[in-house]
């Protein structure tokens, strides 16, 4: 019973803050609301028995990605977010219709699937941290190494894309150069 209650609280937190992420006018606030969503997700992971993943989520996302996002917002900050203008009313409606349709479709599929909530035939042994480590470094070693290569490529790519080509004139682009 208490698990259900906890799930309800966590789910409510995640959904509410997710709505604020997409509705907040001020971008810094949107980033901070995303932080709440990610913390709630980490709590959900812990409740689902994935405590290592919960820790990684906190460290990597709430620590790393959030900081990166805040930096990004501050560097590119010019006006206080972009408020939806009065003429721009069709866009939210269209987005809401598409999102609601998607939710309805997938939720109907989930609700109509039989046997989804039945317990599996044999009891599942909880996945321990040792199992997870062995799984990464023995069974899926190739994927793990490929992932590290990808991270390296992403870092180099990000630096190459964002570096300044030549200092000075790029800071003030003239109309002709656009």
């Amino acid at each position, binding site marked *: 019973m208490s698990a259900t209650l906890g799930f309800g609280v966590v789910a409510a937190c*995640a959904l509410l803050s997710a709505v604020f*992420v997409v509705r907040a006018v001020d971008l810094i606030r949107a980033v901070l609301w995303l932080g709440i969503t*990610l913390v709630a997700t980490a709590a959900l992971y812990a409740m689902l028995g994935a405590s290592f993943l919960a820790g990684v989520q906190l460290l990597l996302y709430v620590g790393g*990605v959030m900081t990166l996002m805040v930096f990004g917002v501050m560097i590119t900050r010019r006006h206080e977010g972009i408020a939806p203008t009065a003429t721009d009313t069709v866009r939210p409606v269209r987005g809401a219709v598409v*999102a*609601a349709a998607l*939710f309805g479709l997938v939720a109907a599929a989930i609700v109509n699937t039989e046997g989804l909530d039945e317990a599996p035939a044999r009891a599942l042994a909880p*996945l321990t941290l040792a199992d997870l480590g062995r799984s990464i470094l023995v069974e899926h070693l190739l994927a793990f190494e490929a992932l590290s290569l990808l991270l390296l490529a992403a870092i180099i790519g990000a*630096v190459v*894309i964002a570096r300044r080509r030549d200092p000075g004139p790029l800071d003030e682009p003239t109309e002709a150069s656009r």
Partner: protein
Amino acid sequence: MTLSHCLLLATALFSIGVYGLLTRRHAIAVLLSVELMANAANICFVAFSRFRGGSGQLFALFALALTVAEVAVGLALVILLYRSHRDTRIDLASEMKL
């Protein structure tokens, strides 16, 4: 808490992300929406791993790392966009060049 509860929560989060993706114009806000969607997918992986077994947790871990790489490159693109246009509306990216 059952598998379908987790899946419904993930679906709702994903739909909210889709809404943000379609309505926001600021490039970083679009990135945030993509984060929400990736997060929802991860919840599915972990939920299936908990209730059905298998290596869902491992997959979620890899997906997490992929998302972080995506954010790094995405933010670099946003900064490039800002540098060339002094603005970060996502529509401007259609004419972006290096």
